[in-house]
């Protein structure tokens, strides 16, 4: 692919062009020139976009795409296109499929189906056979086939001995275990945060305690095994405190937070709107403040959109019957860029890569073109026209955002959205 990008402000603090506006010439997928002004002598295609900014390609650590099994929610092809249009050059895909990915053939299959796409897909394998939480899946074999993380998607590991064994077994593998932070017995039938509003709505609440207890337990097991643990999508201030202490002790723990858990409090559920029904649930402003602080001091390693496409039938029912989850790829940048400065938003969208063995390419001459294109200053109402996913269950629908991705340049291809 050959392309001349005109007038792009470069946001990449590893680059000597950081914060400068340049023309960028891409030849055969490689950055061949970065200069104040480049003449289009070879008559390449030219890209000019309003208030264009470029950064290193973004990464999302928790994305569901439905295929195989839930193609009515999303397909691999459209899901990857959605990621690209939303600015992501790489994603880690959850084994939220039917059947779940729990052997090497399934990992090979999804890798080979998607290998030529602009968006780099890292499949996450199931931790246990059929994600039943009983017997470990063939973790080594799946790792050999190309996965490095193991997760029974959104299913807490209720048996502590199973997690102990999983941490011991993966200690010397190139891979790590995800443990969903929820103590199910304490959470009970809880469908939202346990607080004043859950009391007012007569909905069973899941208290912060249910998350913190599981995190505390997992960290004890981690300390014992000296393994590698990832705690996905934490949502409470108590979890932050526990993980901060564990990191000070030198334990190999990472954690993430879902963008919507930074953006919304549980107050959004006041009229039982199921688009706000997510797992972990929306919490209080105090929790959000602690999460933001945790992101800035590094206790939280990276963010995720926790993208989970669901059909109308999954969502447009009574609150207790509705499925948990929201799509998030399309709104990820707008939401983060609304909460943080653009430079910090970009950092949060790129700093997870190293944990998933995804190569980063500086915006320098000679490097591979792995770029996200975006406009950080566009103010807009996030509505259904902003959604590229097959499912439209976005928690951000009807909210104002600032900043929109134009698309990506990756693997010698370009994908543009709106």
């Amino acid at each position, binding site marked *: 692919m050959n392309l001349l990008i005109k007038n792009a402000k470069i946001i990449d603090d590893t680059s000597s062009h950081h914060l400068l506006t340049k023309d960028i010439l891409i030849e055969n997928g490689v950055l061949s020139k970065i200069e104040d002004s480049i003449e289009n002598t070879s008559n390449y295609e030219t890209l000019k976009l309003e208030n264009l900014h470029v950064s290193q390609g973004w990464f999302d650590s928790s994305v569901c795409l439905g295929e195989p099994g839930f193609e009515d929610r999303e397909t691999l092809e459209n899901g990857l296109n959605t990621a690209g249009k939303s600015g992501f050059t790489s994603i880690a895909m959850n084994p939220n499929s039917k059947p779940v990915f729990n052997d090497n053939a399934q990992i090979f299959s999804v890798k080979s189906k998607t290998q030529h796409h602009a968006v780099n897909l890292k499949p996450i394998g199931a931790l246990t056979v059929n994600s039943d939480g009983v017997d470990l899946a063939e973790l080594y074999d799946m790792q050999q086939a190309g996965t490095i993380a193991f997760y029974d998607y959104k299913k807490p590991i209720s048996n502590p001995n199973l997690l102990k064994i999983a941490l011991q077994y993966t200690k010397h593998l190139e891979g790590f275990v995800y443990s969903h932070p929820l103590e199910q017995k304490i959470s009970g039938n809880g469908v939202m945060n346990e607080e004043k509003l859950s009391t007012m709505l007569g909905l069973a609440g899941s208290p912060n305690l249910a998350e913190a207890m599981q995190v505390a337990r997992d960290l004890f097991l981690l300390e014992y095994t000296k393994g590698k643990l990832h705690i996905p999508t934490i949502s409470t201030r108590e979890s932050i405190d526990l993980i901060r202490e564990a990191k000070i002790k030198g334990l190999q723990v990472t954690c993430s937070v879902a963008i919507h858990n930074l953006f919304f409090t549980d107050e959004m559920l006041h009229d039982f709107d199921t688009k706000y029904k997510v797992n972990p649930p929306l919490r209080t402003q105090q929790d959000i403040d602690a999460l933001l602080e945790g992101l800035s001091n590094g206790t939280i390693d990276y963010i995720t959109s926790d993208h989970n496409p669901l059909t109308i039938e999954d969502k*447009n029912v009574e609150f207790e*019957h509705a499925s948990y989850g929201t799509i998030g790829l399309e709104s990820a940048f707008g939401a983060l860029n609304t909460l943080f400065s653009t430079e910090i938003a970009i950092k949060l969208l790129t700093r997870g890569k190293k944990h998933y063995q995804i190569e980063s390419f500086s915006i320098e001459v000679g490097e591979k073109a792995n770029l996200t294109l975006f406009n950080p200053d566009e103010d807009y109402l996030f509505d259904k026209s902003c959604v590229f996913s097959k499912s439209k269950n976005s928690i951000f629908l009807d909210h104002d955002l600032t900043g929109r991705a134009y698309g990506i340049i990756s693997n010698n291809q370009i994908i543009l959205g709106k």
Partner: protein
Amino acid sequence: MNELSVNHLLGIKYITKSDIDLIFETADHFKEVINRPIKKVPSLRDVTIANLFFENSTRTKLSFELAEKRLSADVINFSAAQSSVKKGETLIDTVNNILSMKVDMVVMRHPNPGAGVFLSKHIKAAIVNAGDGAHEHPTQALLDSFSIRERLGEVAGKNVVIVGDILHSRVALSNIYALKLQGANVMVCGPNTLIPQHIHKLGVKVEHDLRKALNWCDVANMLRVQNERMAISYFPSTREYTQQYGVNKNLLDSLDKEIVIMHPGPINRGVEITSDVADSGQSIILDQVQNGVAVRMAVIYLLASKIKN
């Protein structure tokens, strides 16, 4: 003001003090009507009401049906303890099927909190919530306040304690909203396991000693222990519950003052209250039942007049 601020009665938290006043004034009139030899008015002759009960009910359903018939509305009844959901039909589809037969108003009981609110966003008919999970039971709270007003003259300034299973109770929640809205002081009393962790944030007092609670109050609303809603045991035995939270005649007589006893029914005699308490002069349990019909007539009448307008 002669009309409600809302088009549905989904819960007490969605209405105003003026709405309650209007409902009570209208109910005063209907209470007089149902004590006449001819207990019926032709007000709603052109209105069709569907009673949709997705959860079992005898008393509430009878009370609504009687209220509707006293107003001369056409009434259809649909009972399906979640059977349609199990067959795969959604709530919206079930209700729309019924509405397509030209129904103007829906009275719905449903096991899921917020079911009425959800439905109100998707269908074109006035909705009366007859109980949605542990959320609200607004007509029960209205008839409870109406009965307090009838017995004590007014609700404002009165001390009301709600005793029992607050955690699983829509009656408790609607009563808290209704009583607070009218300026009463509200306390909840029961074993700690049946009091929601954050209930104090609704501006109610919490007391675990029944004698103290009864000495504080003017009115005690005794709730039924809802064993059917409990996934696990919240107290060791019914016997032990009654020892701590059952009201008997000796306890009542030993109080500093004569308090009013209420119960939304059905009563577990000998558990939350003994028979001699339930049948005593201090009890207004049967007044509550009679007032239920008048209050529900008022609610239906006022919502129907908004449809006509």
